[in-house]
């Protein structure tokens, strides 16, 4: 396992032109004279947001080198991803399909995925409650108790639908408590509940954007390990949906995405000027806002977290890879169950 993280290139300056020249990536930024070059071999992926041109030569070269290219909308919604010829282990994917068809095995994995998510949501609330004012602390503690009860209910869940229901209820409790541990700048509209498509306040806009970043990270991790990102255990099979990526994302949402967004607002890194209010009530990040968030995300990804199963500290950016490996080991029958990552 290589622990050295190669760099990912994120391009979000609209109108940027990316070209291939031998082994070099040549970048022309609009309004910036001159060109910039990057050695392609130091990049493990390219992620572009919105209107960015990539030359055909560059795209095909990335496909050949198995360097994924991910297209996101300007607002950070996942659009598409290009990978080269499938290189993954067919035996592992075969095991993944067999487990998916085995109702009991599928339920076991789905339950643990959701348990990991709720456990981590609860951790966020308790963590924030520690430093909160008494009234806010009560709200956060109360919600944390509800989440603990939800985890207990999970073990008795007898179908995926029931698991989904518990997950949905826990998410509502959790997001209802979030305003109590969030203190945005006073000139920002308050966060009341989670909404999307489109998000209608700055916190939701930042959450949606960050989920996009997380999703591309998790998707990449699954590809890297050789799992089929489109065959999920919790999210099942839906055309065009990377269901396993959505599955594996669940346990990381609270700590890697929600907590990251909370921190950005609580520290006033994200301010009113970073958001555009569009007609129809949608709110989106401005170019500066996205830059701010992506910059902070890079740093966030290098922060290390204790990994109880691996028994060592792992940078946030590699946690999905470690978990994808654990899932692969379970699917191969080397581990009796899938164990989600839990923050501590």
């Amino acid at each position: 396992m290589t622990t050295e993280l190669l760099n990912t290139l994120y391009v979000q300056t609209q109108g940027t032109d990316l070209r291939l020249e031998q082994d070099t990536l040549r970048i022309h930024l609009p309004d910036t004279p001159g060109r910039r070059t990057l050695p392609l071999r130091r990049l493990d992926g390219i992620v572009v947001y919105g209107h960015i041109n990539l030359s055909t030569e560059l795209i095909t070269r990335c496909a050949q080198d198995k360097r994924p290219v991910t297209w996101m909308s300007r607002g950070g919604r996942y659009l598409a991803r290009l990978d080269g010829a499938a290189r993954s282990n067919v035996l592992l994917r075969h095991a993944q399909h067999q487990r998916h068809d085995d109702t009991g095995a599928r339920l076991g994995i789905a339950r643990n995925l959701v348990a990991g998510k709720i456990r981590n949501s609860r951790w966020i609330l308790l963590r924030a409650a520690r430093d909160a004012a008494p009234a806010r602390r009560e709200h956060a503690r109360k919600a944390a108790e509800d989440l603990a009860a939800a985890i207990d209910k999970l073990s008795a869940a007898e179908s995926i639908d029931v698991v989904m229901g518990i997950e949905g209820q826990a998410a509502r409790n959790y997001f209802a408590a979030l305003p109590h541990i969030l203190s945005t700048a006073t000139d920002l509209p308050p966060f009341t509940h989670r909404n999307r498509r489109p998000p209608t306040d700055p916190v939701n806009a930042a959450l949606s954007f960050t989920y996009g970043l997380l999703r591309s990270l998790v998707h990449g991790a699954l590809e890297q390990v050789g799992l089929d990102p489109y065959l999920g255990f919790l999210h099942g099979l839906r055309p065009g949906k990377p269901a396993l990526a959505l599955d594996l994302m669940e346990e990381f949402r609270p700590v890697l995405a929600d907590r990251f967004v909370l921190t950005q607002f609580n520290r006033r890194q994200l301010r009113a000027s970073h958001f555009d209010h569009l007609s129809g009530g949608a709110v989106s990040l401005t170019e500066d806002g996205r830059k701010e968030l992506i910059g902070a995300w890079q740093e966030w990804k290098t922060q290390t977290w204790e990994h109880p199963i691996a028994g060592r500290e792992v940078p946030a950016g590699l946690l999905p890879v470690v978990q994808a490996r654990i899932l692969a080991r379970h699917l191969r029958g080397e581990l009796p169950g899938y164990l989600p990552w839990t923050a501590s």
Partner: protein
Amino acid sequence: MDLLLTYDVDTTSPAGRRRLRRVAKHCEGHGLRVQKSVFEIVADEKTLLKLLHDLDQIIDSDTDSIRLYRLPTDGFNHVQTLGIAQIQPHREDLVL
């Protein structure tokens, strides 16, 4: 590992200028240009061997020279600069 590569290619003839361009292009494929003929490169042993081999094929060993310095571990984190020089992001994701 962190490497510093410098080159000097004789450009008095058209063939020399061609060699210069090829050396520069090749280096751009491995690292970041920090001065006109100076590159900072992060590579492993295997890639380095390949790079040196390729450059050796390009240059004219009678007139051109290439120098490669292995910096101590973490070398690029201790670069001091004056003037317009900038610290290069070798081990960070890039946002443009």
